[in-house]
């Protein structure tokens, strides 16, 4: 009843194929954007920004990229951390070596570096798929680990192996405070999400999904698997690379190669699985879940134990985190393999027919 689409007729293809064809959706998104851009800066504390909001925004972008490759095109990738690393170090090299390099082009160039890397390590997808492809992408991950650890050129020969950036500004405005960082990342996220959504509902998105669903049939109707798969790798790694550069520049400030280890790759994959594969919104939901969960557990578990009279140490919490993490992944895969996005869609359906059960 709340979500009734009755009466919302579309008389042109444009109206039918817009991103939010249902009016209630449009209101919801408008409210959400208002909250995100205007409301949050007023309500959120510094801690919320640095611990939750900024990581969420950047990870959401990365998850978006991973979803394009894994969810829409069906190519398993365990090397997302490597793409983030290449984006971060690529951007760093441009930033540090070219004096006066503006920030946004730096980020884009970082993304392009990741694109090249992604296409290169995406070549195996033309020969293999599934598990074998997962192993091939792990090769990218470990190779990148080694590259940024051992090849001193990438880190400008710093003795410690870690690099840092400072004095970031956009169009003359400095990006120092948590608020400015948040707004900058959020704006970039919105732009990237819009472009990604356009791609995904256009011809190339259909090609990706065709390859995912049945690549033999796709070839027969004239889709070139090579172009489709490599373009998925290219677009995906561009977005992930940019997110990596943002993560390094804005969230971390100074970093080492271990910031982009295989754990990060798994985290991103889990975001996509839990959030929902093949859905732009899924990336957002999954990122929110994975970013908030450890913090939630950190706060909540000691309290929970205290109810029973136990005092638990941080090591116990971190072990519990691993267990809960793993259990949740399995639970999601069993109960709702299409993730939170599907649960969201089911929720909307319930709202549509309320007060009837179906």
């Amino acid at each position, binding site marked *: 009843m709340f979500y009734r689409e009755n009466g919302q007729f579309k008389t042109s293809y444009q109206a039918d194929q817009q991103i939010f064809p249902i009016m209630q959706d449009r209101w919801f998104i408008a409210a959400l954007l208002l909250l995100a851009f205007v409301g949050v800066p007023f309500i959120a504390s510094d801690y919320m920004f640095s611990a939750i909001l900024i990581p969420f925004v950047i990870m959401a972008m990365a998850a978006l990229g991973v979803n394009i490759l894994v969810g829409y095109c069906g190519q398993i990738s365990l090397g997302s951390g490597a793409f983030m690393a290449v984006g971060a170090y690529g951007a760093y090299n441009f930033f540090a070596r070219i004096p006066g390099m503006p920030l946004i082009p730096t980020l884009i160039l970082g993304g392009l570096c990741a694109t090249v890397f992604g296409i290169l390590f995406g070549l195996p997808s033309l*020969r293999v798929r599934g598990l074998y492809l997962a*192993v*091939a992408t792990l*090769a990218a991950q470990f*190779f990148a680990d080694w590259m940024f650890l051992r090849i001193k050129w990438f880190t400008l020969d710093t003795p410690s192996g870690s690099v840092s950036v400072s004095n970031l500004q956009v169009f003359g405005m400095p990006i120092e405070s948590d608020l400015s960082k948040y707004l900058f990342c959020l704006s970039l996220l919105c732009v990237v999400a819009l472009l990604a959504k356009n791609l995904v509902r256009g011809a190339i998105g259909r090609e990706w999904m065709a390859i995912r669903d049945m690549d033999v049939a796709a070839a027969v109707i004239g889709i070139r698997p090579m172009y489709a798969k490599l373009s998925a790798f290219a677009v995906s790694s561009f977005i992930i690379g940019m997110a990596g550069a943002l993560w390094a520049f804005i969230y971390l400030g100074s970093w080492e190669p271990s910031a982009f280890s295989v754990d990060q790759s798994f985290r991103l994959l889990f975001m996509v*699985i839990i959030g929902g594969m093949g859905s732009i919104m899924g990336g957002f939901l999954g990122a929110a879940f994975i970013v908030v969960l450890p913090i939630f557990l950190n706060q909540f578990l000691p309290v929970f134990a205290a109810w029973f009279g136990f005092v638990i140490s941080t090591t116990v919490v971190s072990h519990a985190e691993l267990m809960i993490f793993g259990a949740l992944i399995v639970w999601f*895969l069993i109960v709702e393999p299409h993730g939170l996005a599907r649960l969201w869609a089911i929720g909307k359906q319930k709202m549509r027919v309320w007060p009837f059960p179906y």
Partner: protein
Amino acid sequence: MGFFLETLLGGLMAGMLYSLVALGFVLIFKASGVFNFAQGAMVLFAALAMARFSEWLNASGLGNLWLVNLIAFAMAAGVMFCVAWVIERLVLRQLVNQEGTTLLMATLGITYFLEGLGQSLFGSDIYKIDIGMPKEPVMAFESTFPGGILINQEDLIAALIAACLVALLSLFFQKTSTGRALRAVADDHQAAQSIGIPLNRIWVIVWCVAGVVALVAGMIWGSKLGVQFSLATVALRALPVVILGGLTSVPGAIIGGLIIGVGEKLSEVYLGPYVGGGIEIWFAYVLALLFLLVRPQGLFGEKIIDRV
């Protein structure tokens, strides 16, 4: 020349250990089509169990090394059987008809769970496993090569144990009726079910066997390196082995492991200095990657034909 042989032998031994872990992968994949990413976590879990059990047994006064180890091994094996049963019941049974990628990701989840559980139950310090392996290296072939070749006795014995295990498993698969049933299930789940082979029981058996293999691997690795959290990452090192050897082949796992072990050591020693060192972390993977491009099914695996 002597140094080269030393490196070669060292690589072969290390390769044997990789093969042990890879064996677990191949077993489970052969019998259920599931790629068990959690094999490494199982190795860690098993090793932790055995380490702590032998510690407790020692502390409770049981003196004899062999007895302690035997009991600890049996207890740890029992634990692994429980783990296998629980995994089959709670996870595999619910995901029977799902596609490979879903199952793969489920095993990723199991990995995290086992890692957390293992450390919660058994602790997260570094533990020792002492199975009486001689720790001093010996010099061999002193007559042929000046100074002789350094052979690590521990590695040698480990390789022997691994070889015995492989022989046992091969016998099991080829000669027993359970082994035959496992091979049938690996070929075609539905066909095997239709002739009355109990799928769920088979899967529990397979995961138990893989658990024991993980235990042996954990025992050997743990004795060599000490049992610690990083043992879980050993699974990641063994993945290229199954790719190289072919996911469905036991001899492939062995030969693949040896190739990777030798390749890693040789490349580190001879190529490493030119490119900054530390190439061990990606050599195996890039080798597997290149292999994938040329021969996707691995050395001994079966080719997959798509029917439309």
